[in-house]
């Protein structure tokens, strides 16, 4: 998404879905995973007669509320969307003016879409041509339409292609930058958006600044430390600019070099210590490898309010430390909802037992590792303080530094005022009244200045920049192959001093683009460009001129730096259709040094006829009562009681073929050579060619009950086999997200 139009985030809001005339959901199940948010979907149906379309390998509880449901084969979203585009272009239902003014490269998409006739799509996806045509017609004719997704769309070896084609589908219909439209990703955990924005990632610094020396210099300066000193903390400047291991494959860093393991590139060392805060690593793919990695570490530190089940999974006998972290109700700070709305989470009680909030733990380690003073200095810089106050001074530090996504307006005082006044905002538009007039609830970013009211609908040119309007971001240069990448004539946000496309603003072009003259004083203070302008002169001047600091450009359908410049269908690494693997193979070459580890694609896919031995599709997802790795929720006797055991949804016909009875035990074998034995639950939500298992369980490993590994009095009320013991190898070629939504397995009666 960020590679299409500038930002990778939900573009509209849950309330705004009430404005939609059609809602199409790919690989998300909000009725179960976001139940309270789902009421806005139901209101859209009730108030707006919105048509709800669900595309999912399973007949989910969301599908039960749908007007149209298509049971898609896992990993075939690209053909399905191209099929929709084929019908849209064939009938001339696309928004031609919108595409002309605001999109680059749609012709390439049109060419590829022409190949995906409804009949061909039916063969690949398992959705009939009639159903595809019916769904496409309803969706294309009922604008504005919103497109929703979650991990069902992203967790594929072609996840990035999926999340590029969905925006392109929306662009073709002119559904972007309008109320009731948008690409609305439903985030999982409460602060996925916030923690991602804060760059808690292997490939970027806070605010998506990247890892180049320029970014590091900006942060060193903003943190009040010497760049050379900071660089000296790393092995070398070279390693400072390289992506680290990711959560998806950190274990490879421990196992690298062992026979049969993927090669690693990690500054000449294996991983020897693991430091985890609040992360259920028993819900990531390849649990058998995770276990082996844990067994081989020299030091494991796990800080969590409950026992992190990594400590239970491993057979390591020494040097595993469990630190009782406080819950988020025992501290305070900002949490960013899926729609970029910030809320102040006030502290409810003091930390219970001996638990400590995460920041106290980090500060104490920083002291003992010898960098506390440098580490906390930036909290004192804004007002030349001698002591900082947590979290307010950290909030204000972030607001001072993070310009890329417009966090300048997110001061602690303002965020608190929003939460204090949450009753003053409209549920659909999020507009405030009374003391909150001219602001949207939680100041959804970008919130360009300390008086800006936030931006609730991204890329909306029918609002002024001051009211949250903007075009697409100028992020990919000025031209490509001779085509101008700036937006077309008269497609600037309302009330702009410059009615056409314009570049991102920097110190050199500000006067020309905005049509202003800077004073000598302003010229002396202004930063090099809008992303590093801590003087805020660029943002303030832009607001006055109605100009978005990041420019006004075209969204792009072609990403010339990616292996697939336009999204292409590639079968999952483990596909049940061997015939289609030959036609639509994965990437021919394996990817070297992908987040520090070599990663297999085509060579693995073609190494064997996987479907012969493992003919059943394996789908994983969540349950309504559990969350993530389930550590917290299985520690609740009420929630645990709802699903006390791990289970597998299986169609009675499939079960019968294997002699499996409802309530009886069944074993699931994976191509990795791993297996789990779980209770069979007959269900028509799955078709006879696939099974479903939830991924929240841990505490049992390949038939071995690990209950005795829990310290006394800490075992959760429910334990079970982890689904991710049997999910398959496979990672996205750009983001390295694991392919857990479309693997294979073999089943038998246990």
């Amino acid at each position, binding site marked *: 998404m960020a590679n299409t139009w500038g930002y990778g985030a939900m573009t509209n809001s849950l309330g705004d879905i009430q404005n939609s005339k059609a809602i199409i959901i790919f690989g998300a199940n909000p009725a179960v995973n976001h139940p309270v948010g789902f009421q806005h979907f139901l209101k859209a149906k009730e108030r707006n007669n919105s048509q709800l379309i669900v595309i999912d390998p399973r007949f989910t509880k969301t599908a039960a509320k749908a007007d149209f449901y298509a049971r898609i084969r896992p990993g075939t979203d690209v053909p399905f969307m191209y099929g929709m585009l084929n019908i849209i272009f064939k009938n001339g239902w696309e928004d031609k003016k919108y595409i002309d003014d605001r999109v680059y490269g749609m012709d390439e998409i049109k060419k590829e879409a022409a190949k995906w006739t409804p009949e061909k799509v039916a063969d690949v996806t398992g959705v009939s041509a009639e159903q595809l045509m019916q769904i496409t017609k309803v969706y294309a004719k009922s604008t504005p339409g919103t497109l929703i997704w979650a991990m069902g769309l992203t967790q594929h070896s072609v996840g990035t292609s999926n999340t590029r084609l969905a925006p392109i589908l929306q662009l073709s219909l002119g559904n972007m930058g309008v109320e009731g439209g948008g690409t609305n990703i439903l985030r999982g955990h*409460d602060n996925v958006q916030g923690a991602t924005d804060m760059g808690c990632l292997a490939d970027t610094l806070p605010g998506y600044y990247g890892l180049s020396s320029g970014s590091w210099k900006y942060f060193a300066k903003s943190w009040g430390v010497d760049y050379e000193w900071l660089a000296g903390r790393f*092995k070398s400047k070279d390693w400072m600019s390289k992506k680290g291991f990711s959560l998806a494959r950190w274990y490879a860093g421990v196992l690298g070099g062992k026979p049969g393991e993927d090669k690693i590139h990690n500054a000449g060392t294996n991983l020897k210590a693991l430091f985890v*805060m609040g992360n259920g690593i028993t819900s990531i793919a390849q649990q058998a490898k995770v276990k082996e990695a844990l067994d081989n570490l020299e030091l494991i530190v796990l800080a969590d309010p409950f026992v992190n089940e990594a400590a239970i999974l491993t057979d390591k006998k020494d040097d595993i*430390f469990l*630190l009782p972290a406080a819950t*988020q109700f025992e501290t305070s700070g900002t949490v960013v909802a899926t729609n970029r709305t910030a809320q102040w989470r006030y502290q409810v009680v003091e930390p219970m037992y001996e638990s400590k909030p995460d920041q106290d733990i980090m500060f104490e380690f920083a002291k003992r590792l010898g960098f506390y003073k440098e580490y906390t200095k930036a909290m004192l810089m804004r007002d030349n303080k001698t002591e900082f106050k947590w979290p307010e001074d950290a909030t204000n530090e972030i607001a001072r530094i993070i310009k890329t996504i417009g966090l300048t307006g997110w001061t602690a005082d303002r965020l608190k005022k929003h939460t204090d006044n949450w009753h003053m905002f409209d549920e659909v538009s999020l507009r405030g009244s009374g003391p909150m007039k001219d602001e949207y609830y939680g100041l959804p970013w970008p919130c360009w200045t300390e008086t800006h009211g936030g931006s609730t609908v991204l890329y909306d040119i029918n609002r002024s920049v001051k009211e949250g309007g903007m075009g697409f971001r100028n992020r990919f240069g000025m031209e490509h192959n001779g085509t101008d990448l700036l937006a077309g004539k008269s497609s600037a946000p309302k009330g702009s001093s410059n009615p056409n496309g314009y570049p991102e603003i920097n110190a050199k072009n500000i006067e020309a683009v905005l049509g202003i003259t800077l004073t000598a004083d302003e010229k002396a203070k202004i930063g090099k460009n809008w992303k590093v302008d801590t003087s805020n002169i660029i943002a303030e001047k832009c607001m006055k001129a109605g100009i978005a600091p990041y420019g006004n450009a075209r969204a792009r359908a072609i990403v010339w730096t990616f292996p697939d410049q336009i999204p292409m269908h590639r079968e999952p690494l483990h596909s049940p259709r061997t015939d289609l693997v030959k036609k639509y193979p994965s990437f021919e070459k394996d990817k070297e040094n992908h987040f520090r580890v070599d990663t297999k694609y085509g060579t693995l896919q073609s190494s064997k006829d996987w479907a012969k031995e493992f003919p059943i599709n394996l789908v994983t997802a969540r349950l309504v009562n559990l969350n993530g790795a389930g550590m917290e929720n299985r520690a609740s006797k009420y929630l645990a009681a709802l699903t006390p055991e791990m289970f597998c949804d299986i169609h009675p016909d499939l079960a019968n073929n294997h002699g499996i009875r409802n309530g009886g035990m069944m074993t699931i074998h994976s191509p990795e050579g791993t297996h789990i034995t779980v209770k069979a639950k007959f269900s028509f939500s799955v078709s006879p060619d696939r099974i479903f298992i939830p991924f929240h369980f841990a505490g049992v490993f390949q038939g071995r009950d690990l209950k005795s590994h829990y*310290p006394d009095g800490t075992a959760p009320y429910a334990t079970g086999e982890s689904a991710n013991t049997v999910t398959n190898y496979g990672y996205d070629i750009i983001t390295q997200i694991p392919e857990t939504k479309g693997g294979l397995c073999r089943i038998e009666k246990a």
Partner: protein
Amino acid sequence: MTSTTQNALSTKIGRRSFLKMAAIAGAFGATSSFASENVTRPATAEEVKNPFPGSKEVKTICTACSVGCGITAEVQNGVWVRQEVAQDHPISLGGHCCKGADMIDMVRSEVRLKYPMVKEAGQWKRISWDTAYERISKKLNSLRETSGPDAVQFLGSAKMSSEQAYYFRKFAAFFGTNNTDHQARI
């Protein structure tokens, strides 16, 4: 009060009626009439209306998912005694799912990790924070010296506040590695 609540829940007494009784017990103090033959009595109208005198209400946000539902937490004497939905919250509109409704019990769960522990020779052992900090820091420092900062993997969380997530990333940077990530990857 947590453990008493749990005991009460394992019997046939409903939660609401238990809270009424608990309020009475509090009012009677140590010389409660629980010992006398009238173990329970109907709560007075005032006690039903205001079972937690002197409590304060805190506006806060659910930690279950990314919807960001409002929570009204009632706190008395430093104890989270009651959780209500936020009827006037612009996203949740008074809604809670089963996970959200459980926030109060998650915080007060009996199976929480209560103190620092270390596994030694296959056995869990209680240790002090100071010991934990000292032993972990010593090992991290020595690994940094001998194998370099990239020998350590940091995994933060999408369940942290933004400030904590930012400071977690910053921690890895100051330690000297980009081996840091969180759940957004999956």
